[in-house]
């Protein structure tokens, strides 16, 4: 009662609706871990900073920058060009490539890193056979080193480019084909039309994809650590584990976040200048141009290469290893792992979608700065390494649990122990903090397509809000909502560090099992659960692709 009165007066003071207040509180809830990470900046750190600056910090920054630039460049290359080709042209296998190009998405970065190392490293079969055939010694020839900065760029690009591909393709499909036809009548050949019209129009979508890629790159620990690359994340954990200083580790993460925030802010500001509303509402069916002979062959090669190196090869390496170990690995415990992974991924994806919808709507209906700010702030979670997020989640919940316990003990002589910490709830919460960015981005893009006028039209026919959502918004957004759902699903399936820390007793996932075996350098045994992650991820990936094809107005 008091709360109600308070909230009413508070709302009227700030011109909020009560619904909006609830949404803001919801958003704030998910900001807590990120605030905790950033809050570390306000605590002075002892003597570690001068040491870091004198010795390794430049290395961390340099390597991370090279990594970002490299992964960003190759993700664009591997993502945008095939997206364009499969959208506009017909060539051998193009109908299958359309979705198959997405498959590397189901491959966790550390797994592809392990499998490539296993095969192409100096001690691996490829170089061994090469040496046996030629009689060369290790030092007699040059072979690209898998475990290097370049290798890390390659591995991360190969599994992250699908984000760019996904968004670029969705954007190309959405563009009115007329825009491209106009440019042809104005003397542009296909290449010019791509460069001068399609690409600039798809820019906002591509940048969203790119920023997801870059944030994942910054948060990656498994790959860079295994490859011996001193990147920012390796620095974070070295400081924490090696020097026993989790504060400075959090500060390093916070600095990382600041960079990301500045980048995102600048990008948004530059985009705001231009309103990219499509000027044509008319969509003629997309007639794909048939490519012939050499151009068809090249198109096929360009689209198949990322798939080959990002999925076919590593998956077949894994398959090869799995053959020798699967009979031992496929016991009842394995199916429990599978079930755990799938249900966690599904529940999280569903929750993420619902929350993203709430926040997306609050952003759409309200012009308040605070709503927009909070949503942007939550999205930063994607750039924080899972381990750091996990600690950021543990701190407030353990504090809450302990306070509650103390309170109950004092007043009822009865303790509650740790009520939430150590349950699946806290793990799912951590996933949400980390992955909400993905679903929010997707949902916001979808909501952007629904003009406010549509709501107004519907309201004039006397529809309630719920009915408007069900009858108008859901059908329009269905494809995007499914995409949001499945992206998070695949991400959770692959997630490792937060799971490692926060999972309850006796609870394991495929990712944990894979990591433990691979980390023990037992690649052959790691292959079965790794392959299971990949296979479990394939189905949603194919579904994502189909939902996008159907999202095009006039799609038949």
């Amino acid at each position, binding site marked *: 009662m008091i709360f109600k009165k308070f909230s009413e007066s508070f709302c009227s003071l700030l011109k909020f609706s009560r619904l909006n207040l609830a949404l803001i509180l919801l958003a704030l809830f998910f900001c807590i871990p990120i605030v905790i990470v950033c809050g570390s900046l306000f605590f002075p750190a002892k003597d570690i900073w001068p040491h870091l600056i004198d010795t390794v910090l430049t290395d961390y920054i340099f390597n991370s920058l090279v990594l970002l630039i490299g992964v960003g460049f190759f993700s664009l290359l591997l993502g945008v060009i095939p997206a364009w080709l499969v959208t506009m042209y017909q060539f051998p296998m193009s109908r299958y490539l359309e979705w198959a190009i997405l498959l590397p998405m189901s491959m966790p970065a550390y797994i592809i890193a392990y499998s490539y190392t296993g095969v192409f490293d100096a*001690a691996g079969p490829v170089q061994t056979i090469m040496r046996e055939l030629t009689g060369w010694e290790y030092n007699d020839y040059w072979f690209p080193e898998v475990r290097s900065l370049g290798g890390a760029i390659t591995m991360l690009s190969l599994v992250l480019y699908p984000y760019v591909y996904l968004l670029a393709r969705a954007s190309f499909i959405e563009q009115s084909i007329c825009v491209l036809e106009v440019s042809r009548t104005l003397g542009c050949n296909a290449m010019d039309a791509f460069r001068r019209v399609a690409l600039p129009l798809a820019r906002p979508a591509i940048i969203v994809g790119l920023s997801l890629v870059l944030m994942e790159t910054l948060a990656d620990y498994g790959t860079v650590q295994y490859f011996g690359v001193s990147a920012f994340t390796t620095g974070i954990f070295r400081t924490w*584990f090696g020097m026993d200083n989790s504060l400075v580790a959090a500060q390093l993460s916070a600095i990382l976040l600041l960079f990301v925030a500045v980048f995102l802010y600048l990008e948004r500001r530059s985009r705001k200048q231009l309103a990219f509303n499509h000027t044509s509402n008319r969509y003629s069916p997309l007639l794909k141009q048939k490519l012939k002979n050499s151009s068809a062959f090249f198109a096929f090669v360009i689209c198949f290469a990322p798939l080959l190196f990002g999925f076919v090869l590593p998956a077949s390496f894994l398959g090869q290893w799995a053959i020798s170990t699967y009979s031992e690995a496929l016991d009842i415990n394995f199916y429990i792992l599978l079930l755990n992974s799938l249900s966690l991924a599904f529940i999280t994806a569903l929750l993420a979608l619902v929350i993203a919808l709430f926040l997306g709507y609050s952003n759409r209906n309200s012009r308040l700065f605070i709503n927009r700010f909070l949503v942007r702030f939550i999205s930063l979670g994607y750039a924080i390494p899972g381990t750091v997020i996990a*600690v950021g989640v543990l701190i407030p919940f353990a504090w809450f649990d302990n306070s509650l316990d103390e309170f109950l003990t004092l007043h009822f002589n009865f303790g509650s122990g*740790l009520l939430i910490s150590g349950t699946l709830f806290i793990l799912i919460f951590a996933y949400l903090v980390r992955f909400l960015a993905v679903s929010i981005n997707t949902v916001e893009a979808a909501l952007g397509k629904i003009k406010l006028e549509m709501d107004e039209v519907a309201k004039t026919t006397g529809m309630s809000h719920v009915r408007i959502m069900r009858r108008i918004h859901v059908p329009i957004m269905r494809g995007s909502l499914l995409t949001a759902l499945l992206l998070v699903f695949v991400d959770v399936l692959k997630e490792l560090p937060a799971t490692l820390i926060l999972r309850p007793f006796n609870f394991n996932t495929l990712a944990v099992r894979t990591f*433990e075996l691979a980390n023990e350098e037992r690649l052959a045994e790691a292959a079965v659960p790794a392959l299971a992650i990949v296979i479990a991820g394939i189905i949603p990936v194919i579904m994502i692709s189909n939902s996008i094809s159907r999202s095009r107005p006039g799609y038949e």
Partner: protein
Amino acid sequence: MKKTFTIIIFLIFQQLLNAAEVNIYSARKETLIKPLLDQFNRDTGIKVNLITGKADTFIKRLEIEGKNTPADILLTVDAARLVRAKEKDLFQEVISDALNKVIPNYFRDIDNHWFGLSLRSRVIIFSPDKVNKRELIDYLDLANSKWRGRICVRSSSNIYNQSLVASMIARHGINKIEIWASRLVENFARSPKGGDRDQIKAVAIGVCDIALVNNYYLAGMLESNQEYEMNAAKKVKLFWPDQNGHGAHVNISGAGVTKYAKNKEEAIQLLEYLVTDKAQQWYSDINYEYAVNPEIKNTTILGEWGAFKSDDLNLSLLGRYNRDAVLLMDRVGWK
């Protein structure tokens, strides 16, 4: 509302009453500890709940959870983390004759906060084609310029290297070791990457001539069901460093009972179980680690390698100098 509350309380009660269990935070991987815990469960009827992960995150979690932590035991795979947990006041004293009798006192904490359960040595492996065994002496010798471009070792972010350098600092002082480490880095054949098995493979194919690895990795590869691993391991030989001096560097896996353990008795029972002959033999036979109980006979490849002189440095010092070791390795550019 009232109903859900009663249900919650009921559940909590049930948890408290259901006493015959013990909860473990384990930095040892599931496959390397679960079989023992299952055996314990069969023998005693006490249920073991396990989470595996990284030692440092568990230490952080214990700190954050405070007195309500569910964990009764923290199990790690190196001494430095045990020392760190003790420094943060996360363990409690355990008085157990069984433990004290089996575990030599240099493998357990002075205040009986933690206990070593198994041990391994960080050894030099070498390619017999390229290195004469007589050239090898000890860790300090690795800084000699004769090894220029011939040494493989993994990243200094790894605890095994941190512990080794910490033990060297404890023995020789920080200044001497800083010079040693900077020369060692100059002798690297390549920028550190991969794990210990990778270093063994690297020696096997001639990337480098010698490498620093934990001995159980070599044993694991020799016993591997993957032919290529076994072949690689057969191409290298093991050398026990510093046998005329302090002895080879050793580290332990160990555990302690947490300060706020709810199931203290079961926890102690489990620790005692882990030093029984049966469990200790398991460490040797399955994990290729040495038992802390000197009575245990090594039947596998460990037996073939025979006895060696191990460094009897107080393991607490590994914890004390860990941070210095990391800072030092940063300074000398050991990636």
